[in-house]
């Protein structure tokens, strides 16, 4: 792609180099540690599911059980494998026995290590095969049913009741939605377990549970057949259960997942050590499952100023790209986030938004960028809000964004009503069709407002990245450089769930998913 912004390639390369170094500095920490949620994920991927009679998920029970006896630094996979060889039972049966207090995993005599690894790897391969089949099924369905036109229209449902969500989602699809995201119940990101079963009560959203995933997947496949295009399902990994939810998404063929440690740290006060370790495994899973990840840079602009802090968005996109590459996630699956969040009163604000969106497009040409609508300056004046959303849609089609999270005219009033979505889709379709090739037709004036703005923001981003390379990502976050939010290295939620790995630690999925046959 020819640069319309006259961006200096050398500056972009320097940004990538610095970001790569930032990610590489954290990787040893990630490699040396595991977390309770990583271990619960492994338990889930080995086929453990369900709850006990007081609603405790079996993955939590078995992981806590091993942890209490100090064995978790070997990896839950080791203990499950050891029990499999000794008892001849499968992981689910073992977890049930543990939950009934009929078995103590760490007291089972150590079996032949080779046999233990074989047993657990064979079981792991079953799930890896299932996930691979899901990926193929998605590809086949897109092939036969067809795909939405880019930018894909991303709509949220958030009734709290999965069955009501199905009604709303199917209606949205018939109106034109390509991606349905089921917003999670507020504060689910802070739960250190994943709720179980279908749920009909939630606050500001619907709990992410495996059964809810399954229900919505089925509903979207059904309606997709009827409208003749593949409908993508999106949910949210970020939080204390990042890799677990990624695994559930892989098992139930979700297509898009929010996945961003930085978001969890800044906006949910999740401990940074915990969530970087969790993020790595969750991205390995998402990458292998062919799931597009959405990153959360757009959120910075809800707390920090979109004009002054635009470079932090770009810097974070570069860092997120490198963390994703480390986890084997290809560029085509990176929906890096940004947002249309400048004050509408700003003179020439639209030009600055265009500069930002075009810059993201040019710097990350293969990434299906996720573009977020105005929220901060939505007022309750739905008529003006509808126009703000139209301006946002214009910027998106102009700069060829990949995933368009549609703005709602009633943003700031309530979670969307059925017709709010319809109006919003009508708005986007009108603008996208009416201005389809505007990006190919119009070039930006040399050294004009747009070019200069983009060059300045990129320059500031590189400066920040060089500083982060020097300070390290942990210190950078402590100083509040992203989103203006400061988080201490050992503060926040979930640090107690980080465990240093011992010699001989086992997680069969990293090798199976990162290496070999993808």
């Amino acid at each position: 792609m020819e640069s319309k912004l006259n961006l200096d390639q050398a500056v972009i390369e320097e940004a990538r180099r610095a970001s790569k170094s930032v990610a590489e500095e954290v990787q040893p920490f990630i490699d040396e540690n595991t977390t309770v949620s990583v271990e619960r994920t492994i338990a889930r991927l080995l086929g453990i599911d369900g709850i006990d009679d007081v609603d405790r998920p079996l993955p939590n029970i078995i992981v806590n059980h091993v942890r209490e006896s100090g064995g978790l630094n070997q990896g839950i996979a080791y203990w499950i494998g050891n029990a499999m060889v000794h008892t001849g039972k499968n992981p689910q049966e073992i977890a049930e026995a543990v939950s009934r207090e009929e078995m103590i995993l760490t007291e089972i005599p150590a079996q032949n290590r080779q046999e233990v690894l074989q047993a657990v790897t064979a079981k792991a391969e079953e799930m890896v095969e299932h996930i691979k089949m899901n990926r193929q099924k998605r590809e086949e369905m897109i092939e036969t049913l067809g795909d939405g036109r880019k930018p894909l229209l991303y709509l949220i449902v958030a009734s709290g009741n999965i069955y009501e969500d199905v009604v709303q989602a199917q209606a949205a699809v018939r109106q034109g939605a390509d991606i349905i995201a089921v917003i999670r119940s507020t504060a689910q990101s802070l739960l250190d377990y994943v709720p179980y079963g279908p749920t009909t009560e939630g606050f500001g959203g619907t709990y992410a549970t495996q059964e809810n995933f399954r229900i919505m997947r089925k509903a979207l496949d059904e309606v997709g057949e009827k409208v003749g295009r593949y409908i993508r399902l999106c949910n949210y990994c970020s939080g204390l259960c990042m890799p677990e939810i990624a695994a559930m998404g892989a098992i139930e063929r979700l297509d898009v997942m929010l996945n961003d440690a930085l978001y969890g740290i800044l906006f949910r006060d999740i401990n940074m050590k915990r969530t970087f370790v969790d993020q790595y495994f969750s991205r390995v899973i998402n990458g292998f499952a062919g799931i597009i990840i959405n990153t959360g840079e757009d959120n910075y602009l809800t707390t920090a100023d979109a004009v002054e802090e635009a470079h932090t968005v770009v810097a974070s996109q570069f860092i997120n790209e490198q963390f994703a590459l480390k986890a084997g996630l290809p560029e085509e699956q990176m929906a890096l986030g940004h947002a249309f969040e400048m004050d509408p009163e700003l003179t020439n604000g639209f030009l600055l938004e265009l500069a930002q969106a075009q810059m993201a497009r040019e710097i990350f040409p293969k990434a299906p960028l996720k573009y977020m609508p105005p929220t901060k300056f939505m007022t309750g004046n739905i008529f003006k809000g509808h126009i703000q959303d139209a301006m946002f849609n214009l910027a998106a089609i102009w700069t060829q964004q990949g995933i368009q999270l549609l703005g709602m005219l009633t943003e700031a009033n309530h979670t969307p009503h059925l017709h709010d979505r319809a109006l919003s889709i009508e708005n986007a379709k009108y603008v996208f069709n009416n201005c389809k090739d505007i990006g190919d037709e119009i070039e930006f004036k040399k050294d004009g407002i747009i070019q200069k703005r983009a060059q300045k923001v990129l320059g500031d981003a590189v400066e920040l990245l060089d500083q982060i390379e020097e300070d390290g990502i942990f210190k950078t976050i402590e100083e509040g450089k992203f989103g203006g939010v400061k988080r201490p290295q050992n503060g926040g939620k979930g640090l107690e769930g980080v465990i240093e790995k011992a010699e001989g630690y086992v997680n069969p999925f990293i090798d199976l998913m990162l290496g070999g046959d993808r």
Partner: protein
Amino acid sequence: MAIEKVDLSNVKPYGDTLNDGMIQLSFTLPVPYGEEAKESARRLMLKMGLEEPNVVNAMDLGIGYTYFIVYAKSSHTINYNAIKVPKVEVERMTKEEVEEFIDKKIKRDVVILGACTGSDAHTVGIDAIINMKGYHGHYGLERYKGIEAYNLGSQVENEELIAKAIEMKADALLVSQVVTQKDVHIKNLTNLIELLEAENLRDKLIVVCGGPRISHELAKELGYDAGFGTNTYAEDVAAFVIHEMLERNLV
């Protein structure tokens, strides 16, 4: 002003002629698109006391439901003269006036803590009031001379807020609540007051809540000193807090 001709004891909506009663509405009925749907919308308007309903637009929502845009004339009137709305009774002040008031009358720094409490993760409101930058050109409390403002951010438990209030010797607590689904904000706001009372702190603190669905009346009902809705800026909250401190002798 056009208001002079209006009979304030019998007010009707205005479209383009005084007392034409004109109202615009939009809503969805769970019935399939068609003439019967439009007629249903019209009759619903008539039942609501709206005359001459005119369905100007109807849209098929794809699942057998229909969306309408309707204009109609209100048959009802309202007596404006009889309306009383409880409001925060404090005169508007500028940032400079607030700073001068603190300097002259309070004579020490005022400590204000703000948080989005409970499960609420939407900090846009509290950020607008507290953070340096403020909102729409109105600086936040962090920038005020004489005010020590702390934004504790989102998803702060009520217990944690109280612990911080004690630790920081706070004069005022600002609680922001944006998510109101299933009245979660009411439970959460009530809980804070109960905890403060149990700790014997309620009378020693100015406690204020805010959010798009918060009114002063609701706030008072829940035991708060004041409630602020939309279009509130830092100086409005500050003006209330400092006047209240003086009045309650909390200086």
